[in-house]
């Protein structure tokens, strides 16, 4: 496998080792998907990485990163209404943003078909919660396919796309973190490129597509009929798996990644329960569940996150008058965290102790490694900003955080972030915090990608309702946290260079007069500007700017002959006040047992942002190498 792009467009059937996210892209190619949209967020950004590996001219579908998940959903929907099979993908909490448009989709006769790919995050590896998006599926009458591994990501997407197109309805393919990132050899089918058909296929006469008042009901009826049809299809689908061990006593119903954890755990079991692994987790096939329940004395529902399958299965048992003992979630622990093999062991052991051997006792460890919270990178402009801003605010001032790399400012030594909800929420929260508050000033942080994503309404609200706060926009020119995707102010979209929409001009356009701006490496100036802004009445803005240094360094390192020159510590001048390591906190500083500070050459990029931090001028940046 030399070039991922060539692999993804191979015409003959082949097999390759890929991660779930890559398998999905091949599935889109084979399914004839024509329009794909997204807003970046873990665990799904590698889907776009795979798409990028296909040269734009050869790409069999259009792709864009939209300004947020809601817009991405709308673009994919629009294209699908015009007859093009479309797909939108984003992370778990992205569905909250998309929801206003998303919940309407099932009401529409979607001509081209539309698949919504969700990257849920049990275990909250990179999210602010571990929400179970199957709830949204229930609310919006949208079926959910749930693969467990990359092979299933490929086959389930293809099937979801086929049914979606055939029935002209939306379908969800729900992935989770370790399905997106799992790697294995996957068998792919063949593919023949087809020319794009430019014919307009949207026909208003098929509508009306206006769901208001009583016009909602026939559309809702159609959504419910579709759901019933999928329930029947799900029952007969070869994508379900029945592991038949001829066990009439123990049965387990499960789906997705927990199925693999279960097989792992059962390798050491006293006896092998039968297992029904559902491919379609909503709607649940009544026929399959009924048969399975009737064939077993007791059935455990092994389900990650919330008890959604459990309730459905218990309802079926009640209505079908089946007396089988059904075991679901027992306590809060069953609701929390990813269903890894260790977690599944605990769940099975708790309910059926006789089935699994005891785990050997874990020996005590002599010592544990200190925790390693994520850090801003060496040279990060946010670090310089937080260091400077800390000098402008006092203890009782309220610091409202937002989503992005700058969220990490909440950690010591900066402690710049007292509260966080979700993307773009900081200005609104800060506005509320400022009411009946004459003692502490309020500052709110916001990233530049988030500014466009969901930040604007909060800013406009603060302005026209005259709230008293200082908004600090941490502008680094990219969507850094998720892997440097471009945004509206980057000067390029996914496909080509475009005119940037400068953050400052947008703010000026709103009529905000109190806008201050500086590069964050100018720390003294930034401190002064923040002090000034906080003394101003109403909404004031500070744009704290510095390009993402991780992105810049990666680009520089690709150039032949590039070498970064790290800073040095002048040991004779160092007075060991530890401002560098305890207050500025760049991970490049090494604290030695003998009290000396030295530099980690693997980490230091020679940016020099630390030089002015040292009260004894003991940090030396070799001349001529200032980047």
């Amino acid at each position, binding site marked *: *496998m*030399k070039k991922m792009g060539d692999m993804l467009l191979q015409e003959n059937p082949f097999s390759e*080792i890929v991660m779930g996210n890559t398998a999905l892209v091949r599935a889109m190619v084979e399914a004839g998907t024509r329009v794909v949209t997204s807003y970046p967020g*873990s665990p799904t950004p590698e889907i776009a990485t795979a798409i990028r590996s296909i040269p734009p001219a050869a790409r069999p579908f259009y792709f864009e990163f939209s300004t947020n998940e809601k817009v991405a959903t709308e673009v994919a929907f629009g294209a699908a209404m015009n007859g093009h099979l479309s797909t939108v993908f984003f992370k778990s909490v992205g569905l909250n943003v998309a929801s206003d448009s998303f919940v309407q989709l099932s009401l529409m006769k979607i001509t081209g078909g539309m698949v919504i790919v969700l990257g849920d995050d049990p275990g909250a*590896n*990179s999210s602010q919660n571990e929400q179970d998006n199957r709830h949204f599926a229930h609310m919006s009458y949208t079926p959910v396919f749930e693969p467990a*591994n990359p092979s299933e990501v490929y086959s389930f997407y293809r099937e979801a796309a086929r049914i979606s197109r055939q029935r002209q309805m939306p379908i969800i393919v729900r992935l989770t*973190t*370790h399905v997106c*990132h*799992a*790697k*294995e*050899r996957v068998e792919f089918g063949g593919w023949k490129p087809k020319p794009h058909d430019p014919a307009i296929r949207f026909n208003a006469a098929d509508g009306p597509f206006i769901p208001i008042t009583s016009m909602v009901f026939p559309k809702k009826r159609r959504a419910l009929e579709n759901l019933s049809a999928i329930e029947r299809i799900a029952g007969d689908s070869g994508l379900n798996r029945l592991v038949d061990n001829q066990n009439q006593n123990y049965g387990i119903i499960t789906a997705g*990644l927990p199925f*693999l*954890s279960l*097989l*792992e*755990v059962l*390798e050491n079991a006293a006896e092998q329960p039968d297992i029904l692994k559902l491919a379609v987790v909503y709607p649940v096939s009544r026929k399959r569940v009924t048969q399975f329940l009737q064939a077993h004395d007791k059935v455990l529902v092994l389900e990650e996150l919330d008890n959604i399958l459990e309730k459905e299965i218990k309802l079926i048992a009640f209505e079908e008058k089946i007396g089988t003992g059904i075991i679901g979630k027992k306590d809060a622990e069953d609701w929390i965290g990813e269903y*890894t*093999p*260790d977690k599944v062991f605990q769940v099975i052991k708790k309910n059926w102790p006789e089935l699994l051997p005891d785990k050997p006792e*874990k*020996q005590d*460890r*002599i*010592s*544990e*490694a*200190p*925790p*390693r*919270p*994520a*850090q*801003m*990178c060496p040279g990060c402009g946010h670090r310089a900003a937080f260091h400077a801003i800390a000098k402008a605010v006092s203890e009782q001032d309220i610091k409202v955080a937002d989503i992005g*790399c700058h969220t*990490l400012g909440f*950690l*010591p*030594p900066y402690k710049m972030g007292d509260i966080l909800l979700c993307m773009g929420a900081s200005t609104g929260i800060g506005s509320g915090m400022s009411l009946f508050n004459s003692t502490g000033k309020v500052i709110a942080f916001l990233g530049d990608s988030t500014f466009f994503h969901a930040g604007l309404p909060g800013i406009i609200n603060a302005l026209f309702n005259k709230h008293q706060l200082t908004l600090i926009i941490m502008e680094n020119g990219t969507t850094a*946290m998720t*892997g440097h995707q471009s945004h509206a102010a980057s000067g390029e979209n996914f496909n080509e260079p475009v005119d940037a929409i400068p953050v400052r001009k947008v703010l000026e356009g709103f009529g905000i007069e109190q806008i201050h701006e500086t590069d964050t490496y100018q720390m003294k100036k930034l401190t002064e500007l923040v002090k000034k802004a906080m003394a101003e009445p109403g909404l004031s803005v500070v744009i704290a700017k510095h390009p993402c240094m*991780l992105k810049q360094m990666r680009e520089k390192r690709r150039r032949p002959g590039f070498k970064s020159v790290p800073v040095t510590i002048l040991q004779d001048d160092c007075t060991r006040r*530890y401002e560098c*390591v*305890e207050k500025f*906190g760049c*991970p490049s*500083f*090494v*604290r030695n*047992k003998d009290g000396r500070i030295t530099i*980690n*050459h*693997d*980490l230091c990029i020679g940016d020099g942002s630390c030089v002015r931090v040292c009260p004894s001028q003991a940090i030396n940046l070799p001349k001529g190498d200032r980047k």
Partner: protein
Amino acid sequence: MKNFNIYLTGVGGQGIGLLSEILLRAADKAGYPVKGTDTHGLAQRGGIVASRIRIGDKVHSPLIPEGEADLVVALERHEALRGMNLALRDGGTLVYYDAVWQPLPVRLGLSDEISENLIRQECRKRKITGIKVFHENLSDARMQNIALLRVIHQNKLIPELTAEHYRASMEDLMEGTMLQKNLEFFSAPATE
């Protein structure tokens, strides 16, 4: 092959992803069923990266149950200790590159840096074979992962995998001077 579990760990930016992908593909080239998965939530920002590779016919999940790794590969000393404590079975093997990227509490003066000696003690207590790798004059810090690969190969730490498998796998994933440099380094005779 009986199941063989490898847990790789380090700090974001150390090149875990590439090393893991080389091992995964090498096992595949040797004809074994293999699965893997990475966890790298905020890893790009100096957090912990973990990757798992599972080789064998009876592997189902890409995740390794706690304490069931046969081999822990770490690119950093603190993560070596964390990784072996969490994932390695008693009597298993730890191979680590002795880079030290101090975690925040160490830099704030709240915790002590983990010493080589502590790792040795832990190994002795749990009958773990501990192998430290360090090169005083590595031309490029980004080759620390290949330094580990070399030692994994030279000590035959993954049963049945040969130099050919590793080399073919590297050729899959790299090209140009980067491939050349890494292949040369990989093939150079052992100096330890």
